[in-house]
């Protein structure tokens, strides 16, 4: 198939977006064993904040394309900040009071939060913009056609795709450094393994959990902005399907395992696109999920998941 390399490339791009979101699921699951259903919506909020910034900049006469790096930075920072604050608030008010309740109750609370966020964004945007389906200003308009020897047709690469991948890689590296090298990251891993013992070492578990939500949500918010610039239109409902996919990516990578979630996200993105090339776009999700289920049958704890230990 001639377009296979192109499909692979596009799959990588969407895969990096999934990976950034999947990290949020996996980090929260790591410390709380909770599927944070609202995470997809935090991603969506990030997309809206970033888009609003780009729209506002255009309104002030600064078209994003004039200084794309500045525009992207100005969109990313508030989006990450708002998403982080929202994530921490969700943890504080929707999960922490229920932490000792049965898992199902927290799960219901999470689903409730997800609806609340979606409808609030819709409400706010309807009041503010008079609509809630927002077109996203273009930031990096260039498209490159790269001829690769041996390939029948040149590869099409959007400048924006490169930025998405680059930003995602940078964030993943920073996150990995934070988790592996810093005191906070150490405490996070300790809490993930055994919160009671961590508390006995003087680790304030609540703070670490809040920090986990903060970091995961900030990355989700950034993913939202990157997604918005890449896929051009956003609605308050984009978080659901993408959230499910990112969550699946996290599970396939081995939930609780951060490198695993990167791997799972990228794998899902590539499978989806390349699979879609063979079986048709209609079945691309079916195909991708079938492969992922197969992975889980042979490796139930996920690709990089190894910890199958009881928590006391």
């Amino acid at each position, binding site marked *: 198939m001639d377009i296979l390399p192109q499909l692979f490339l596009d799959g990588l791009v969407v895969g990096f977006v999934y990976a950034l979101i999947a990290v949020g699921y996996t980090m929260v699951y790591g410390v709380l064993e909770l599927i944070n259903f609202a995470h997809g919506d935090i991603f969506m909020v990030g997309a809206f904040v970033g888009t609003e910034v780009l729209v506002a900049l255009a309104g002030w006469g600064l078209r994003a394309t004039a200084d794309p790096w500045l525009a992207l930075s100005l969109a990313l920072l508030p989006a990450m900040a708002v998403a982080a604050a929202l994530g921490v608030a969700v943890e504080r008010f929707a999960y922490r009071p229920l932490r000792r309740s049965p898992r199902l109750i927290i799960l219901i609370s999470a689903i409730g939060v997800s609806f609340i966020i979606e409808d609030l964004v819709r409400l706010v945007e309807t009041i503010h913009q008079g609509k809630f389906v927002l077109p996203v200003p273009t930031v990096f308009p260039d498209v490159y056609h790269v001829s690769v020897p041996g390939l029948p047709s040149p590869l099409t690469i959007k400048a924006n795709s490169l930025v998405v991948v680059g930003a995602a890689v940078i964030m993943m590296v920073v996150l990995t450094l*934070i988790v592996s090298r*810093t*005191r*906070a990251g*150490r*405490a996070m*891993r*300790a809490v993930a*393994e*055994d919160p*009671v*013992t*961590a*508390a*006995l*070492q*003087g*680790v*304030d*578990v609540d703070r670490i959990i809040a*920090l986990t939500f903060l970091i995961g949500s900030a990355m989700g918010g950034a993913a939202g902005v990157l997604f918005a610039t890449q896929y051009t239109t956003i609605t308050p409902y984009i978080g659901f399907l993408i959230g499910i996919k990112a969550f699946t990516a996290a599970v396939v990578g081995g939930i609780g395992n951060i490198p695993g979630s990167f791997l799972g996200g990228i794998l899902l993105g590539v499978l989806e696109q390349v699979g879609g090339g063979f079986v048709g776009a209609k079945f691309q999700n079916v195909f991708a999920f079938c492969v992922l289920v197969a992975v889980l049958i042979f490796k139930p704890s996920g690709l990089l998941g190894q*910890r199958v*230990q009881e928590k*006391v």
Partner: protein
Amino acid sequence: MSAAGGTAPRPAQEGAAGRAAGPVLEARGVSKRFGGLVAVERVDLAIAPGTVHSLIGPNGAGKTTLFNMITGIYRPDEGDILFRGRSVAGLPPEKVAERGISRTFQNVRLFKELTALENVLVGMHLHLRANFFDVVLHTPRVEAEERRARREARELLAAVGLGGLGDELAKNLPYGHQRRLEIARALAVRPALLLLDEPAAGMNPRETEAVMELIDGLRRERGLTILLIEHDMKVVMGISDVVTVLDHGAKIAEGPPDAIRRDPRVIEAYLGKAVER
């Protein structure tokens, strides 16, 4: 052990200095029930500074429950627990640790996916002051602090006999080493009171000997007060200053090892069986 100057117990906190001669830890009529089961019943306990104080008693006597109440895992149903004269009953574990109490566990509870060094560094968590933004921005302060912490952690590892094993994942260490690592991690909290839950469990006589030496050294060289749960009577009688005996949640005897050894109630409830064995 001489090099580990940085991990000396912290100076007594405000107001506590005047009571230096009083007990480090005092339990007053502490009880804990689980449903209908009484785990600990109105126990009084006073631990003098600088002593090794042992808790003994048959399985289910309530020793570990008492530990859990002291360290904030359980809140006592009745009574109060004072540490250096201030109540710690019902404080969350991290606050108890902040006051200066740390512990080990009957079943080793290390962070298995972290290295030995990282385990100790988690214990030092309280004493690292850099905040999140320092960390993200990687200020020189963070750098300096982290370097200092790593040096200190390596010294602690050396002190418990794990020098050079810092980069091993905790789960890959042999059992005896894991127990020592747990002690090193507890020391990293810089406690004034160290609670050891069966430190010699599952060890051969030679390892047991080494653990006794270690505990004795902690007391002598660091001025730590140690509360010890132990089944191995050789350990208990060998290093304890005071022994408290629990049975069915209640205190049935207390005194120096020699007196306990001769106490008829103790012999009946506990030692008798041990002797038969």
